[in-house]
């Protein structure tokens, strides 16, 4: 490895994670940007709809035209306060916006209105759980601040080979996104996580996203950029002063948060072990390689020349307003998870499966409709999830409602349907064949409860397999399954298997 490579922080070969973490303690800091889901922008009434045609959601304010004046969106302030409350923050009694000056064409004003030393919310925490070999461990991630700012326009780089900013001949700008309310959530340095740092980072961003979604203040879609994460990281020998930190941007999925932390620990340890030094810089994470490359050096600290925003007056939320907002807070995800586990008598893993399937709200609604918890879970994560996966749709877009499940369960309880027939009912519902009753009627679905018909089918099956009949008579009752199966087949599943079994044993004069 060349000397030049050592000084610019790049190495050709990375240590593996065990080697890297063996010699150093990491300190991580996470900066998360969340686009709020307000109807209109932060300072003007332009729409925030995602995916509109370029430059169709703009006005003099968000284009930074001379003489235009911003006015703060009250809903954005309320959402920010609610995020602050969810993160156990203190809500400022008085705070101002600040002007952050920089020249970059994504900001038509040549400054971004943000908050500097007076954030709206500060000094909070979020508890997250990580899995360790010794079981789940709770880590408290302290929150430094939650502040309000505005998103920037979207740049598309043209010319050059890669479509990246490097080598581009020029760029095109769409200002639809400029001025959309953006919240930045900054953690305090997270220390003492050791080798769990990557998992803690991921668990934090995951739980933060859960909180944001529970508050219904943003859709928090990392892949669409409505939630974005920057990872600050330094490493140092145990007990030594903190090292120089890097900031990794472009981390666009929960999985990448974990990978970016792990990769950066490996990179920094490799540089240091090779006698190099870490420089303070911005790095860009690449999803494809799982590695980052150097971006701007921050050696000459950026000079944003922050000053209080003269076009806006301070925000001074009254304590009454804060309490009103506190009263709108939903149950926090961690509390809800604990409650559902207890109420549904399932473990964390089972609950996670429900969450992954997008089934929690559906199961909740089904239970609320009066269905037993176990049955509600069974249908949503069994048959219905299978169909959803097969057809490639989300569970909640299947045309099956909690009330449908209630009706089907009632038919099962009354003996008119069994589970196998119920699956046919759901198939009919999904195919748009009408209501539960209509599907049952149209498909002629009903448990055969006529003993005569069942006995005829049993006799037929016994006649077809005399050897099995002998086995059962001689006491090998487990052989009865073959005959029950045959009867279920001839009745096309429309019999109650338990009843068939009882009738069969009676027929052969065998008792269990």
């Amino acid at each position, binding site marked *: 490895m060349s000397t030049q490579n050592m000084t610019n922080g790049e190495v050709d070969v990375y240590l593996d994670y065990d080697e890297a973490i063996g010699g150093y303690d990491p300190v991580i800091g996470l900066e998360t940007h969340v686009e709020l889901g307000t*109807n209109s922008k932060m300072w003007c009434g*332009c729409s925030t709809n995602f995916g509109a045609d370029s*430059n169709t959601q*703009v006005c003099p304010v968000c284009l930074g035209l001379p003489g235009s004046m911003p*006015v703060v969106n009250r809903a954005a302030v309320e959402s920010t306060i609610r995020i602050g409350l969810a993160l156990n923050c203190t809500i400022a009694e008085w705070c101002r916006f600040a002007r952050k000056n920089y020249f970059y064409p994504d900001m038509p004003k040549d400054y971004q209105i943000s908050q500097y030393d007076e954030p709206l919310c500060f000094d909070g925490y979020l508890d997250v759980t990580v899995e360790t070999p010794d079981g789940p461990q709770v880590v408290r991630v302290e929150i430094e601040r939650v502040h309000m700012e505005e998103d920037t326009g979207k740049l598309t780089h043209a010319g050059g080979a890669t479509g990246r*900013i490097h080598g581009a001949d*020029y*760029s095109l700008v769409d200002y639809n996104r400029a001025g959309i309310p953006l919240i930045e959530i900054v953690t305090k340095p997270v220390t003492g996580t050791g080798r769990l740092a990557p998992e803690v980072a991921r668990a934090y961003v995951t739980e933060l996203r859960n909180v944001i979604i529970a508050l219904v203040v943003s859709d928090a879609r990392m892949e669409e950029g409505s939630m974005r994460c920057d990872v600050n990281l330094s490493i140092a020998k145990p007990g030594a002063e903190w090292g120089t930190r890097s900031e990794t941007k472009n981390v666009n999925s929960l999985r990448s948060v974990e990978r970016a932390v792990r990769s950066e620990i490996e990179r920094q340890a490799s540089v240091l072990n090779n006698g190099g030094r870490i420089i303070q810089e911005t790095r860009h994470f690449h999803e494809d390689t799982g590695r980052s490359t150097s971006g701007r050096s921050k050696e000459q600290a950026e000079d944003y*020349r922050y000053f*209080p925003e003269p076009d806006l007056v301070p925000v001074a939320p009254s304590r009454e307003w804060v309490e009103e907002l506190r009263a709108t807070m939903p149950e926090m995800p961690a509390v809800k998870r604990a409650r559902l586990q207890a109420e549904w008598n399932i473990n964390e893993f089972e609950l996670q499966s429900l969450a992954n399937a997008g089934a929690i709200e559906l199961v909740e609604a089904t239970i609320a409709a009066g269905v037993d918890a176990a049955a509600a879970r069974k249908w949503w994560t069994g048959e219905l999830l299978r169909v959803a996966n097969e057809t490639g749709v989300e569970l909640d877009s299947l045309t099956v409602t909690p009330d449908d499940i209630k009706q089907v369960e009632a038919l099962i309880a009354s003996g008119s349907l069994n589970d196998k027939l119920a699956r046919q009912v759901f198939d009919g519902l999904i195919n748009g064949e009408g209501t539960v009753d209509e599907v049952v009627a149209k498909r002629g679905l009903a448990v055969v409860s006529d003993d005569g018909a069942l006995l005829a089918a049993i006799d037929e099956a016994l006649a077809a397999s005399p050897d099995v009949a002998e086995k059962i008579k001689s006491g090998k009752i487990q052989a009865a399954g073959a005959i029950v199966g045959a009867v279920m087949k001839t009745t096309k599943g429309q019999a109650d298997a338990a009843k068939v079994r009882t009738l069969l044993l009676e027929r052969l004069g065998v008792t269990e």
Partner: protein
Amino acid sequence: MSSITRPEVAHLARLARLDLAPEELDHYAEQLDVILQSVARISEVAADDIPPMSHPIPMVNVFRDDVVTPGITRDEALAAAPAQEDDRFRVPRILDEE
């Protein structure tokens, strides 16, 4: 005696994307100095019992409701742009500009 230095003016010029000639640096250093001295007089009257203010009118919480209002059309937005392409503002190369 100028309290703002030539390198500081050069730094500000760079941040503001202004290409100043050497003689202009001296010129603006003098001008900025006068401005700074004028503003510095505020410090003479600012006592501990006078809180700093960032706005001439003492008011807080000026908000608008979260309601979408019509903006301007794309053609209007792009009308004054020096260059446009594909319904977007076309801007010069961003990196390597120095």
